[in-house]
């Protein structure tokens, strides 16, 4: 009955169908994205993604553990002897070669800031311990030196240095 009319309107009809389908697809995507995005860390979590910490009160030879993004972080005020010891180690002795300078900030070498989870399986190493005067992980026997570098044991890598910077002489911003 309407075959002739159908022929003449085929193009317009196809275009209309494609356009409607395309707009519908865009709309669906615009709805789906926020439903997924809500899984991301919320604003109150993100507000703690970056913290400021005043290292001033930490005496030489002492370390404190602070929390950052749910992880414990060691902040150690190293002694001259510890710095000298760390710098004296030849890179060839290291399993995960990194100089002491690479693990501290210039002008602030006395401050060592590291995430306090052993790179083996995540235990928290004990400070002022081990065969290298640094840290010793009691879980599986990893020894770290005075720059937090892995020296012996099953851990594959040095203790992780988080992104941080000194925004004043003693104020550190981590993250």
């Amino acid at each position, binding site marked *: 009955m309407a075959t002739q009319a159908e022929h003449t309107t085929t193009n317009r009809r196809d275009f209309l169908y494609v356009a409607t389908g395309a707009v519908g697809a865009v709309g669906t995507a615009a709805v789906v994205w926020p439903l997924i995005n809500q899984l991301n860390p*919320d*604003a109150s979590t993100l507000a703690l993604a970056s913290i400021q910490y005043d290292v001033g009160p930490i005496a030489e030879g002492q370390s404190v553990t602070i929390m950052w993004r749910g992880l414990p972080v060691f902040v150690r005020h190293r002694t001259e002897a510890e710095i000298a010891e760390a710098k004296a180690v030849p890179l060839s002795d290291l399993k995960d070669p990194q100089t002491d300078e690479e693990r501290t900030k210039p002008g602030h070498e006395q401050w060592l800031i590291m995430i306090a989870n052993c790179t083996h399986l995540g235990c928290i190493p004990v400070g002022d311990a081990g065969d290298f005067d640094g840290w010793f992980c009691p879980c599986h026997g990893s020894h770290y030196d005075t720059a937090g570098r892995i020296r012996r044991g099953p851990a594959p890598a040095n203790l992780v240095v988080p992104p941080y910077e000194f925004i004043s002489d003693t104020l550190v911003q981590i993250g």
Partner: protein
Amino acid sequence: MSEHSTYVPGNAVEKWLDDRLPVVRFAKAHLMDFPTPKNLNYWWTFGAILVMCLGVQIVTGIILAMHYTPNTALAFDSVEHIRRNVSGGRVIQATHAVGASMFFVALYVHMFRGLYYGSYKAPREILWILGVLIFILTMATAFMGYILPWGQMSFWGATVISNIFTAIPLVGENIKQLVLGGFAVGNPTLNRFFSLHYLLPFVIAAVVALHIWALHVPGNNNPVGVEVKDSRDTIPFHPYYTMKDLFAMVLFMIPFAWFIFFAPDILGHPDNYIMANSQVTPAHIVPEWYLLPFYTILRAIDFNVLFIDSKLGGVIAMGGAMVMLLVVPWLDTSKVRSGNFRPMFKWFYWLFVINFIGLMYLGAQPAEGIYTVLAKVCTAYYFVYFLIVLPVLSRIETPKPLPTSISESVLGKNAHA
């Protein structure tokens, strides 16, 4: 179930699957080829809209549950946390809250459509009863969901409604304690309502599946109310009704979006922004609008009948109002389905609609003065409509002549136009 099947597996894989689990055959028969009366109007799109509403509530609800804490000390703040801190949380939470209201708008339209066009009549009684069951389950789900934000209305709504159980003679108090998990609404109540509020939507979805199954046995009713005679009366569900339903859904989303983005709190009560306090009752306790007609019927019985005191009487009346819906297929025995062909029924029907809106309005008013009188009158008409008007009309009314088939009625309409 597969009598309409025209599915021919296109290749070996489809054939292999079809021999083992004919899911494609099933979907083709029931979601695509299903023969549907060609004369359904837009009131028939609300079934699809309701499926969308259920989907929206389940998806947004699962998301909200990821951030919500069902504990009396933390619930209120955790809802605010969703609104303030979670990415897109303000809109997702508003969608769920507004979505409850939109769900009931669609639900009431769908039910009143069924009442007008006689969709509950044989052979669709089970279909109708399953629908009433969905309605009751949805009210229960919405009620429990309203408790979760743990505002003043949440708390006092739960307190008032749970006291309904105490109307039951002898064991009422025990049942109330069983439901609340304590002597008053408290942390155990909140926790179990959260659990049930999460569970019930999936029960509803299962009953919806049965509802659609029951629909696909006799097929759709239609505005003329004459059964499908032959293939000239029908068109395949897809693409004709899929497209029409999708269009109606998009239209429905416009007021939905208006409320979400421009007036998300207007459908709620300001008192629910005050955290629950068991020592202070709000000046007016008002349930959500969609429960108001039944709330009015509950309150309207303020007199004792013989040995039944007013409290139990109110509960019986409210329960009876739902029982009326369940038994309406046997109260209205008129052979003519569609209200279009029932000149007297029409008047009583529209009066019933206005009466129902009146019940809704009265539920939000204080129970005093003229309002209590009107509440009794409206409650009376609600029951009179089902128990007297429908049975009597079935006997005395002379319906207008029916078209012999759907296609005839369609042709006749277009000839006039």
